[in-house]
Structure formats: structure tokens, C-alpha cells
């Protein structure tokens, strides 16, 4: 049990704990936006921990260095793709008309969309008038 292995195991433990947290957030939060808030971040960090930790652990156990390279590649891809998919998903959820939670305090995006729609409407009216 050398240092690399120990670090790796610790990272894996932390990562799995964050997995657990993200799932708990999925359960406890009241609407889909808050669920996404709590779950995406924790799942991404958890994956980073588990995957890179596994790579370190493997190198510590005497496997080849290629392990850590491969795991870093997996982690990088997760780090790149997860936020984009979360963004696309939350945008889709908002646009498909799922209301915000009752306790929400401010909704600038709705105002922005309304303003844009109004502007488009006005433009159309002007176009009709000419």
C-alpha cells in the first residue's frame, strides 16, 4: 500500500460520496431546475474523483502508466460534455414550459423572452402597417 494507491483510494471514496450526494440532491430538491443544480455538479466532480482515483490506484498497484492517461482522457471528456448537456437540458426544460418552483424569487429569463416576443410582435405589426 504505497502513497499513490492510498491517494487513489481516497479519491475514489470522495468521488463515490459525491455520487451519493448528487443522488440525494435529486431526491430532495423541489423542482427540476434545482435538481439539476445539485446533481450535475456533484456527479461530475464525483466522476472526476472516481475515475482519476482509479487511475492513480492502478498505477500504485503496479499496472502500467497508460492507466492514468486513459482515465484522464475519460475524465476530460466527462468534464467537457456534462455541463453542455446539463445546459441543453435545462434550456429544453424551461422552453417546454415547466414552471419554476413556487419559492423562486426572480425570473429574468421569462421577462427577457416576453420582451423579445413583444418586440417581434411590434415589428410584425409595423410591417403589416406599411
Amino acid at each position, binding site marked *: 500500500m504505497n502513497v499513490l494507491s492510498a491517494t487513489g483510494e481516497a479519491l475514489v471514496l470522495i468521488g463515490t460520496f459525491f455520487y451519493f450526494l448528487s443522488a440525494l440532491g435529486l431526491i430532495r430538491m423541489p423542482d427540476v431546475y434545482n435538481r439539476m443544480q445539485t446533481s450535475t*455538479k456533484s456527479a461530475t466532480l464525483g466522476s472526476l474523483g472516481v475515475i482519476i482515483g482509479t487511475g492513480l490506484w492502478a498505477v500504485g498497484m503496479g499496472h502500467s502508466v497508460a492507466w492514468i492517461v486513459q482515465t484522464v482522457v475519460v475524465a476530460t471528456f466527462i468534464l467537457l460534455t456534462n455541463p453542455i448537456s446539463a445546459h441543453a437540458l435545462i434550456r429544453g426544460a424551461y422552453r417546454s414550459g415547466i414552471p419554476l418552483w413556487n419559492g423562486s*424569487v426572480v425570473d429574468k429569463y421569462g421577462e427577457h423572452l416576453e420582451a423579445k416576443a413583444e418586440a417581434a410582435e411590434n415589428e410584425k405589426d409595423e410591417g403589416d402597417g406599411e
Partner: protein
Amino acid sequence: MGEANRFSRYAYTVIVLFLIWVLLTASLDRQELIFGFLLSLFVASFTYPMFTSRGLGNLHPRRVAYAMAYVPYFLWAMIMANLDVAYRVLHPKRPIRPGIVHCKTVLKSNTGKLSLANSITLTPGTITLDVDGEDYFIHWIWVPDEVLGAKTEGEHVENASRNITRPFEKFLKVIFG
């Protein structure tokens, strides 16, 4: 800034793709390297127009140095964010006050906007809902008083931006322009 010439963009794409190939195969076997190089030449020949707009300019030492410095900063912010999330999830009273706020950014390039949006998504209590030009709409799990109590739209945007986008912009402005 404008677009770099075609050769520079092509060369940059080839370099990045070749790097990815080496990481994917995780080996320094000569055959793998030769094949990977040929493959990157081929793939880059039809993907470079969409892949980059600034070409080799991305490899300016200052940019690389800032990018290096950005990684630990970002990781630290991310860990902080997760501790924050842990606090909110585990707290029995579930302390959330969500809302969608509006900020502005000074970044111009699309790649910069993408990195900023990704960074925002992964850091404290915020997730990017939409990007429209320079306007960012961000779902915030705990809208602080200073933003909530803002009198005017401008003040609101200013306060929100100071909290959310500024910390990353100082790095990303250099890296992506």
C-alpha cells in the same frame, strides 16, 4: 482579432487532434504515432473551419500559461461549489432561494462563451440557462440580497455579474479573447 490564415488554423487543428490521439491510445508505439498523424491530417482537412478561428495564435505562451493557471483555480472553485451543494442538500431545512438572474459578459469569441458557460455550470449554485449574445441567463440556487434588492435592471445585472462571471472572465479574457 479576426481570423488567422488557413494554414495556421489547419496546423493548430492537426496538433490538437494528434495530441488527443496520443492520449487515446496511451502508447508511444511508432506505428500508432504514424497512423495517428496521418489520421489527424485527414480529419483536420475538413474539420478545421469549424474547429478553430484563430489557429496557432492559441498557442501563444501567455495564453498557455494562463490556461495552466486556470485549471487549479477552476478545480478549487468546483470543489467549493460541491461543498456548497453538500451543505444545501444535507441541511435539514433545505436552504434554497432559487431564481433566474441576468448577467453580461465582456467575452467576444464563441469558444470563450462556451468555456464561461461551462465554468458557471460547474461552480457555486449556478447553472447556465441560456446565452443570447452577451446576455447570460443563469439559474441561481441562492439569489443573494444585493441582487434581489436591486432597484434597477442595470444594478441587478452589475451585481449578478460581479458575483458570477467576473472571477472567471479575468482568465478567460486572456485565454480566449
